[in-house]
């Protein structure tokens, strides 16, 4: 039983990957002749993957170097997002007045695409780098805001009653009860925000042409090197997956406390 399940946990994902590769091959051979096959993609990407940190100029670097540039940009944007989003979430959760004032604004701002924010960022900041950070932060912070607010509002009323019968000061209440009780929700928000930040980075790099994995993707599309688009897509997916797993581990630790 255990042997069979461990076999299937190993084999089934491979079967999934094989299916995707098969569909891709069929597509490139019979439907879209411009789409490079998996094998051609690998051959043309090989130098970028096997020497991931070479640098031959701003827009011709190993895939690892591009990934690091993007990750650094995401780190800055994500940090900005949670630095703004966490206190905003606590305010929304704690103050009914604040909630009534800002809930509608937030509901309207939440569904706005990064593609819409970026031009605004360029107008405000004049340069592409701060505009990209502005876009990432503005798009990625909402899950943190919403989850933190929900977390504050769903604190077990017994914990709050304990604080009330002991006459804890508002600061002690926040420090000893509200923040620890909300922490698991906050970290769920962080995980979702990081996922969004990674989604937004690609769009913002494509539009600003900044060096990074998204910028590389767009440049290679313009240079008609289609295999590198696929290389970028696979890399983006793998890094996004790794980031989610990483934050998931942090989240589990916090929940376990």
């Amino acid at each position, binding site marked *: 039983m255990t042997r069979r399940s461990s076999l299937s946990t190993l084999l089934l994902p491979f079967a999934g990957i094989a299916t995707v590769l098969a569909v891709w091959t069929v597509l490139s051979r019979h439907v879209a002749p411009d789409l490079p096959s998996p094998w051609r993609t690998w051959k043309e990407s090989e130098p970028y993957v096997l020497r991931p940190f070479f640098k031959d100029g701003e827009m011709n670097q190993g895939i690892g170097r591009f990934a690091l540039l993007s990750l650094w940009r995401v780190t800055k944007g994500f940090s900005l997002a949670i630095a703004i989003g966490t206190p905003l979430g606590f305010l929304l959760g704690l103050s009914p007045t604040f909630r009534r004032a800002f809930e509608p604004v937030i509901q309207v701002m939440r569904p706005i695409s990064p593609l819409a924010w970026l031009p605004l960022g360029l107008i405000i900041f004049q340069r592409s780098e701060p505009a990209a950070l502005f876009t990432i932060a503005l798009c990625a912070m909402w899950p943190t805001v919403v989850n933190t607010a929900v977390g504050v509002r769903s604190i077990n009323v017994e914990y709050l*009653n304990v604080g009330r*019968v*002991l006459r804890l000061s508002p600061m002690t209440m926040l420090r000893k009860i509200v923040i*620890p*009780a909300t922490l698991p929700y906050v970290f769920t928000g962080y995980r979702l925000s990081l996922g969004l930040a990674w989604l937004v980075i690609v769009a913002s790099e494509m539009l600003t042409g900044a060096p990074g994995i998204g910028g590389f993707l767009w440049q290679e599309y313009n240079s008609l090197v289609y295999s590198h688009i696929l290389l970028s897509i696979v890399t983006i997916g793998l890094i996004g997956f790794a980031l989610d797993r990483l934050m998931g581990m942090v989240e589990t630790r916090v929940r376990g406390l």
Partner: protein
Amino acid sequence: MQLLAGDMRPVSDRFLEFSRLSKHFPVPGGGEAVIVEDFDLRVAEGEFVCVIGHSGCGKSTVLSIAMGLASPSSGGIILAGREIVGPGLDRGVVFQSPALLPWLTARENVLLALDQALPDAPRGERRRLADAALARVGLAEAGDRRPAELSAGMQQRVGIARAFAVEPRVLLLDEPFSLLDAFTRMDLQDEMLRLWEEDRRTVVMVTHDVDEALLLADRVVMMTSGPRARVGEILRVPFARPRQRARVLEDARYYPLRERLLAFLAEQGGHQGAIP
């Protein structure tokens, strides 16, 4: 054996006085639901009083007003000559669930109360008092453990330690043993009997367990079923202190008293459901 609520006892017997306490809630669509009306009760210092009644009759409402977590619609509660307004550390509270903060250890949960009660005491002193409070309920070894690592009975012991640690003038216990299994419940009832015997602090405890009330209380206050719940009858429990479960159960008066309580509850049974 039975006493009316408005008995003629001296003022010193009015250590804790519930006076014409009423609680109304507005009902959606207009009107009011009257949960409790004209609840009158005088508790003497050092007395152990149990309040029984059907679930939803408003006994927990009365207690949460005494805790300061709810305010009365009219009437009030006077403790040692001062009216109760809001929560205060002069009242130790034990809830139905242990209500421990899961991210704090047992000691830290007790310290939460001690830090509030004795903000000027040295840290080491407060820690010593927290450990002493845990030792009193038989948890000397559990100070560093988190609630999740403790059994339900041990968790409620920590809750009791937290309430006793600050040496409140009165203890307010809201069905503190009702969520425990039968054996643990008996264990904690005996523990409560022993703890109370040590300093005979004033206790008001809400319960729906008549045996628990007869074991622990000096007087059992029977509440009528809501709406408009109030004190129906008061039963004086004559068993000598210090009490032991076996002795109480052997007492010839035990079953008649128990019958009296059950008969009252049966009479009230028809009006169940607090809100019309």
